[in-house]
């Protein structure tokens, strides 16, 4: 049994919130550079160059790469031999978000659904806890902006539509989203499970390093094929026309009920932010 004090969790979450919003991953910057080589639209090329410049300014000057610093989505990998001491895990995560959004001058974007009254400190966080064997403790914080989240969808298809039906849904979703999710995007796709599990799979798919290959060769082929179909749409960077609408399609799949074919598309804007830490 290993003990982890909540103070360390608060400090880590605070740090992750600030770093995730200011330091875009090198994998994403490399994907912008690769996209720039393939983009034919002069406007699209100009936009990609500016996204690279934007990431650099944010990192150097420690200001958020995007003003929408998002909903704080926190994934916890909790080893079952870990003992959290000094308080509740959930409270520690909330406090870390509160401090990080305050001290990092990050925009607080969370409000009451009807009155639209802002909670003032970007809480609550969305917390997903995955209990695992062992004594490790790993946190991933992924700030999720509203523009791209609004374009995401979950649906229940009939099993008869098969692979082609799922592909059509995914490509159509990107097409209908047009410029709104701030392309070039990363398209997270969750297939299978239940209604809510499909959505979670799609969100988890966004955490995979950009440019990494799916370990399943069948899914790897689908990711490549669907990305090509998406990039034939012509939407381009910022929806102003071009070859690069999305940088990657990431699929996560699991078995589903014999009657069902749940599919979720979680669109991630070009500010594909997330940071991890192990305690």
């Amino acid at each position, binding site marked *: 049994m290993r003990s982890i004090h909540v103070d360390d969790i608060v400090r880590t979450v605070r740090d992750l919130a600030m770093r995730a919003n200011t330091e875009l991953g090198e994998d994403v910057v490399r994907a912008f550079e690769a996209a720039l080589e393939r983009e034919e639209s002069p*406007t699209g090329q100009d936009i990609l160059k500016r996204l690279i410049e*934007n990431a650099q300014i944010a990192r150097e000057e420690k200001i958020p790469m995007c*003003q929408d610093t998002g909903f704080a989505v926190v994934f916890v990998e909790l080893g079952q031999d870990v003992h959290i001491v000094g308080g509740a895990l959930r409270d520690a995560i909330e406090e870390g978000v509160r401090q990080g959004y305050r001290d990092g001058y990050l925009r607080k974007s969370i409000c009451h659904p009807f009155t639209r009254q802002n909670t003032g400190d970007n809480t609550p966080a969305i917390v997903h806890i995955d209990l695992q064997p062992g004594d490790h403790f790993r946190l991933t914080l992924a700030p999720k902006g509203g523009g791209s989240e609004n374009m995401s969808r979950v649906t229940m298809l009939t099993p008869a539509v098969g692979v082609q039906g799922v592909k059509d849904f995914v490509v159509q979703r990107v097409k209908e989203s047009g410029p709104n999710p701030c392309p070039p995007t990363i398209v997270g796709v969750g297939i299978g499970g239940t209604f809510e599990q499909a959505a979670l799979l799609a969100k988890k798919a966004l955490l995979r390093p950009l440019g990494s290959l799916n370990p399943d060769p069948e899914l790897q082929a689908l990711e490549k094929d669907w990305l090509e179909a998406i990039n034939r749409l012509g939407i381009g960077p*910022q929806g*102003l026309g071009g070859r690069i609408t999305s940088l990657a399609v990431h699929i996560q799949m699991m078995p589903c009920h014999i009657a069902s074919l749940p599919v979720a598309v979680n669109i991630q804007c070009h500010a594909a932010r997330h940071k991890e830490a192990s305690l």
Partner: protein
Amino acid sequence: MMPNAILLKTPLSESDVTALRIGDRVLLNGVVYTARDAAHKRLVELLERGEPLPLPLEGQVIYYVGPSPAAPGRPVGAAGPTTSYRMDAYAPVLIGHGLRGMIGKGARNEAVKEALRRSKAVYFAAIGGAGALMARSIVSAEIIAYPELGPEAVRRLEVKNFPVIVANDVHGGDLYEEGVRLYAQDA
């Protein structure tokens, strides 16, 4: 830094915007005002009641932005554009009262495009999410109305070489449609 960019100073004249075509890259200088959803609603209500506005409209440009908080020593935090379609319901009224330009991201509806043609105004796209880069072109920021709206308050921004792209011009051009048509590969 931006090749072939057109330099413009606000307030914009009718001839300034009539000369613009979709795809043109523009560097804006001078003053732009910020206003988002809630502020637009209030501005239009004031106009309907015939009451004065907290900002001038004639020849001016409104930027749809909700900046992140300014760190000490900075005029503003990250300041990229927000999605424009939420302002579509209000924009034609403001354009009809002299507004010459808007900056945002994403396509506009037919009513806005018609107002741009009729009243000679322009819609600029700024790069969504490029909040750090855009903030660099903002020299000063001052809240002039509705401070209670927080990030949605109306601000007077002084901008220097603020980079935008002409997305809808006075001639009916729409880069969101024509740009995509140019690069789409499926019939």
